C-alpha cells in the first residue's frame, strides 16, 4: 500500500495484536468470580506506573471520578492517557502523574478552557499527540476488533493529522486516500456505569459514548457502578449487557461516582462545585489546594461523599427530571 503521508508524532501505545490475543487468552477468564472491591484495592491491583490509561466519559457525564481520585492518592506515575474526556484528565495532570497524552478535547464547553491543561501544554510538560474524537473512538474500535488499524475518512488534509501518529494511504481497492488509524489497546480502561453485578456484567442508560469499544480494547478493566444488582436481574435483560463479565477485572461500587459530573436519569452535575474547581484551576497554587481538600483529604469515596454532604447530593438527584 502506498503511504501518502505520515503523522509526525510518536505513536504512544503501538498496538501489538498478537500480544493482545495472548493476553486475552491468559488473563481474561469466563469463571464467575466475585470481583467487587473498593477503589483502593482496584487501583492497587490493576493500575501500574507507566500504564497507558483510557477513561470513558464525555464532558462531565458518567465520569469514574472515585477511581480517578484514588489513582491520584496512590500517585501512580508516568501515566500515558487517552485524552477524550475532561475532569479526569485535569485531575491526573494537575497531580503531575501524566507524561503524555493522545488528545482530542480538553475543555469545559460553555464553562471555558481548561487552565490545568493549558499550563501543562504551554510549558511543554506533557507530550501531546493530536486526534479527533471519532478517531479515538475508532482506534478503540480497531482494538476491539483485534485488528492493527482501521481506515477512516477523518483528519485528512489537516494539521490534526500532521501532529498525530496516523498515516494516509492510497486504498488498494478504490484508489482514494484514506486515513489509517492505529488500534489503541489500553493497559487499563476505567468505565463508570449505572448498574453492574458482582461479576462485572454492566448496563448503561442513555447514550453509550464509546464504552462498548473501550471495554473491548482494554487489557485490564475497572468498572465502577452507581448500583450493584443481582445476576438474576442481568439475566432478565441480557440484551442490556454492554460490557460482559469476562472482560472485567474489578467492580467498584460508587454511588454518586461521577460527582462533580452527572449521571443521566440519576443526578445532575454539580455546577457550583465545577465552578469552584474551575476557579481553583486558574492558578497552580489553588489547584493544589483543591486537590488537598477534595482528593488527598478524604481517604475513601464515602469520606468524599461525606465532605460534599448528603443534602447537596440529594438536591442533585431531585434536580434530575428523569426520562
Amino acid at each position, binding site marked *: 500500500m502506498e503511504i501518502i503521508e505520515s503523522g509526525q508524532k510518536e505513536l504512544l501505545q503501538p498496538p501489538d495484536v498478537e500480544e493482545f490475543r495472548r493476553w486475552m487468552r491468559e488473563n481474561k477468564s469466563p469463571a464467575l468470580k466475585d470481583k467487587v472491591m473498593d477503589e483502593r484495592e482496584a487501583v492497587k491491583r490493576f493500575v501500574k506506573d507507566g500504564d497507558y490509561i483510557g477513561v470513558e466519559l464525555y464532558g462531565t457525564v458518567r465520569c469514574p471520578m472515585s477511581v480517578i481520585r484514588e489513582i491520584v492518592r496512590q500517585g501512580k506515575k508516568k501515566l500515558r492517557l487517552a485524552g477524550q474526556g475532561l475532569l479526569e484528565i485535569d485531575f491526573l495532570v494537575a497531580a503531575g502523574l501524566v507524561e503524555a497524552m493522545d488528545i482530542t478535547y480538553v*475543555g469545559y464547553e460553555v464553562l471555558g478552557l481548561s487552565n490545568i491543561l493549558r499550563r501543562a501544554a*504551554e510549558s511543554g510538560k506533557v507530550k501531546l499527540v493530536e486526534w*479527533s474524537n471519532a478517531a479515538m473512538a475508532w482506534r478503540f474500535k480497531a482494538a476491539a476488533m483485534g485488528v492493527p488499524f482501521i481506515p477512516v*475518512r477523518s483528519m485528512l*488534509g489537516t494539521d490534526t493529522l500532521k501532529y498525530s501518529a496516523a498515516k494516509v494511504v492510497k486504498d488498494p481497492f478504490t484508489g482514494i486516500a484514506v486515513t489509517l488509524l492505529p488500534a489503541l489497546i489500553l493497559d487499563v480502561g476505567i468505565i463508570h456505569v449505572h448498574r453492574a453485578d458482582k461479576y462485572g456484567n454492566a448496563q448503561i442508560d442513555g447514550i453509550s459514548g464509546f464504552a462498548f469499544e473501550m471495554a473491548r480494547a482494554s487489557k485490564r478493566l475497572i468498572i465502577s457502578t452507581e448500583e450493584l444488582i443481582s445476576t438474576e436481574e442481568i439475566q432478565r435483560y441480557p440484551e442490556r449487557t454492554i460490557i460482559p463479565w469476562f472482560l472485567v477485572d474489578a467492580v467498584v461500587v460508587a454511588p454518586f461516582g461521577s460527582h462533580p459530573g452527572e449521571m443521566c436519569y440519576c443526578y445532575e452535575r454539580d455546577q457550583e462545585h465545577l465552578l469552584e474547581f474551575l476557579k481553583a484551576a486558574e492558578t497552580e497554587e489553588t489547584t493544589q489546594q483543591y486537590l488537598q481538600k477534595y482528593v488527598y483529604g478524604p481517604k475513601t469515596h464515602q469520606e468524599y461523599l461525606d465532605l460534599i454532604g448528603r443534602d447537596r447530593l440529594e438536591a442533585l438527584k431531585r434536580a434530575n427530571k428523569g426520562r
Partner: protein
Amino acid sequence: MASTDYSPTELMICIAARLMKEARTAFIGTGIPMLAAALAKKLYNPDLIAIFEFGGIGASLEDLPRAVGEARTFYRAMVATGICDVMETAQRGLIEYGFLGGAQIDPYGNLNTTVIGPHEKPKVRLPGSGGANDVGSLCWRTIAIMKHEKKRFVERVDFITTPGYLDGPGARERAGLPAGTGPYRVVTDLALLGYDEATKRMMLLATHPGVTVERVLENTGFALIVPKEVAQSEPPSADELRVLRTEVDPQRLYI
C-alpha cells in the same frame, strides 16, 4: 415586527436558526448551535433532527443542553446510541449540516481550535479538535459561527484543526475527503458569509443591521470577496426574540 434591542449573540443565533429552515439533519456542537437548533425547531422546522456526537439523535430540545454528552441531548429522543454510530452515520453521508466554532478561520474556511503559536510551545493551548475535525470532514455542509474580529479572521490559521477548502478548489478531494462536502456559511456578529464557487474563498453575502461593508472589511484579516450586491440581514423579529428568551433559554444559560 423587527426589534432593535438584542445582543450580538442573539443575532447570531437567529441568523443561524434561519439557515436551518430547510435542513433535515444537523450535527450540533456545544453553545450557539444548540440554541439555533432549538429555535429553528420551535419556529420553522419541527422535524429537524439534531444529532449530538456522543449518541443523541432526534432530541426534543425542550430543555437546552449544557454539554454535548448530557441527558438533554437525548431527552425524548428517537435514539440514544454511541459516538462510533453517530460518526459512521456522518461518514456514510447521512448528516447534512454540521455546526462549528473556532478561535481562527482563514479565507478557505479552515478552522483552528488547537493552538495559537507553534504546537511544541504554544502561546495558547486551546481544547483541541474534539468532534470538529470529523464534522468538518464528513458532513455535507458546514456552518461556522464565530465573533468577527481581525485576529480571528486571518490569512493563515496557526493550525488547521478542521478542514475547510484547505488551499483551494479540488484540495479536499485530493486529500481524500468525501466529494461534494465543505464549508457553506459563516455566521458572525457582523455578517453572513459564504464561499465563492470558483475560488472557494470566503465571500460576503449580507451585512447585519447597522453594519457597513467597510466595518466588515476592517474586521477581516484577509481579502474578502465582496460581490456587487450585498444583502442586508433581517434583524431578529419580535417572535424570534420572544421564543429564544422565553422558551429556548429562559434560564439565560447562554444569552
